């Protein structure tokens, strides 16, 4: 608890799915749910921050004003964030900064997306100077191929097996069974995963998250404002890390064709490690204090990487925690009690906010059917394209 905390007054989501409707509709549903959860009306909100997705294919971009207009112009200040998969957290950070500066009192942060089918691909046209275009044109390097590179390293370096990766899916599928906002709510067996088609060796179709439609919204305010509303013990945001990489970034990141040159001096931390490290520093806590984690399982194997990036265990030890059931609800450090991206699929501008929604429900003891008992501190983590990433720490 510190002077730089802000209070989470309300959270809400539109269920994830492949609904094929305009993203604004999802955003408004999530926003109204968050406002209702907060017990305040839309007219009281004096700042709207929207998460934007930078992908063409539909008319208009997601922006703060889109949601503000759809909810009915109320004169609130507006901001729009783009940070790839970290968009929602960056939007939340903007809201937090204005609140802590005393410039805004209550903020509504919304992210929503309507996604196309299949592999995420770059925009059309010939763009020989665009690395995101070139990785497809020259190499046929898809997003799952990057996930597969990380997965293969775990196998060759730490002895991970395809069965371990499948076990992550089995765990997350079970976690998400009762989650009303999850898109996939069905038990999955190790055999189901291993008998699904290999997309990029060693990853099977069921190791890789889908793309989804969905929306998430968070209402935040100063802790003082929360007290005025009679909320004495709100969930608090203790840290939002949105650090960029530090040169030299020596781990191959999507959509790059190459890394920086280390020149023989390896950095102290990888980019993903630095995202979490900055969050711990800002919150003044360490990984031993964390009771629940929501991490970006774009692939099953990536969840294991994240556990180590968040220092929840040593490098190479994630599989042994998984096998011992420690990352399952009821274990020592439950990971992705929401069901994670395995059960949701990815709705980019909404996803980082969805992680915050889940941790909020966990800390309030409202995660029916998937509750981590006695959760006090939760951490989220994700990484997106172009040097974006985030980690949010919440506590109660």
């Amino acid at each position, binding site marked *: 608890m510190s002077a730089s905390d802000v209070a989470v007054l309300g959270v809400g989501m539109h269920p994830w799915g492949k609904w094929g409707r305009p993203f604004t509709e999802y955003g408004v549903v999530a926003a109204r749910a968050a406002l209702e959860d907060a017990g305040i009306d839309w007219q009281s909100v004096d700042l709207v921050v929207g998460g934007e997705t930078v992908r063409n294919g539909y008319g208009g971009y997601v922006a703060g004003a889109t949601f503000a207009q759809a909810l009915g112009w109320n004169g609130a200040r507006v901001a729009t964030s783009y940070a790839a998969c970290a968009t929602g957290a960056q939007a939340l950070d903007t809201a937090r900064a204005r609140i802590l500066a005393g410039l805004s009192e209550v903020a509504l942060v919304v992210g929503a997306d309507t996604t196309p089918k299949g592999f995420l691909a770059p925009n059309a046209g010939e763009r020989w100077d665009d690395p995101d275009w070139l990785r497809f044109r020259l190499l046929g390097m898809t997003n799952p191929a990057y996930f597969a590179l990380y997965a293969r390293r775990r196998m060759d370096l730490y002895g991970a097996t395809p069965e371990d990766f499948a076990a992550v899916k089995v765990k997350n599928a079970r976690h998400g069974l009762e989650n009303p906002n999850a898109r996939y709510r069905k038990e999955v067996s190790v055999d189901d995963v291993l008998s699904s088609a290999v997309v990029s060796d060693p990853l099977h179709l069921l190791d890789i998250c889908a793309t989804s439609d969905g929306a998430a919204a968070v209402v935040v305010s100063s802790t003082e404002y929360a007290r005025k509303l009679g909320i004495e013990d709100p969930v608090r945001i203790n840290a939002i890390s949105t650090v960029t990489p530090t040169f030299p970034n*020596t781990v191959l990141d999507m959509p790059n064709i190459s890394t920086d040159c280390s*020149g023989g001096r390896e950095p102290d931390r990888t980019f993903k490690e630095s995202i979490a490290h900055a969050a711990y520093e800002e919150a003044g806590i360490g990984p031993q204090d964390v009771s629940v984690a929501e991490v970006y399982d774009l692939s099953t194997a990536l969840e294991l990487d994240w556990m180590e990036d968040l220092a929840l265990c040593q490098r190479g030890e994630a599989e042994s925690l998984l096998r011992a059931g420690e990352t399952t609800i009821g274990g020592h450090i439950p990971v992705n009690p929401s069901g994670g991206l395995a059960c949701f699929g990815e709705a980019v501008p909404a996803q980082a906010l969805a992680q915050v929604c889940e941790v909020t429900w966990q800390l309030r003891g409202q995660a029916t059917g998937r509750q981590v008992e006695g959760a006090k501190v939760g951490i989220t983590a994700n990484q997106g394209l172009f040097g974006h990433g985030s980690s949010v720490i919440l506590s109660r």
Partner: protein
Amino acid sequence: MSASPAVEGWFTTGPEPALLGSRCTTCSTVYFPPTPADRAGFCRNPACDGEEFETAELSRRGTVWSYTDAQYQPPAPYVARTDPYEPFALAAVELAEGITVLGQVADGYGVKDLKVGAEVELVVEPLDDERSIWRWKPVTELGEESDQ
């Protein structure tokens, strides 16, 4: 081979082909892909404000950082080389300079021929009828050839 490099200035095509990087003349940091000749270059080392670069041939051999394949046809702008589509392998390779570079794996090789830490060598092969591309080819020790 009459095909020209898919991107001019990214690699050489002689008998011992190599990737071409840009080396900052101020701090010696090497970058790949190289800075285009017709564009201003700015060193991305935050402690360096260099703007002059020289072409640097990168190591022709490196060790596999990781590898995978594409069992489904990637979306456009990828152009399939065969109909029906045939999967190909990909490798990220660490060079002595401390830079990891992605590439497809040479024709005829797949994930079974690779291992994290194994040695590979740069070769140039056709990307399509008009263009050539760099690829990573497993370095086969003498005596192992007969196993293939």
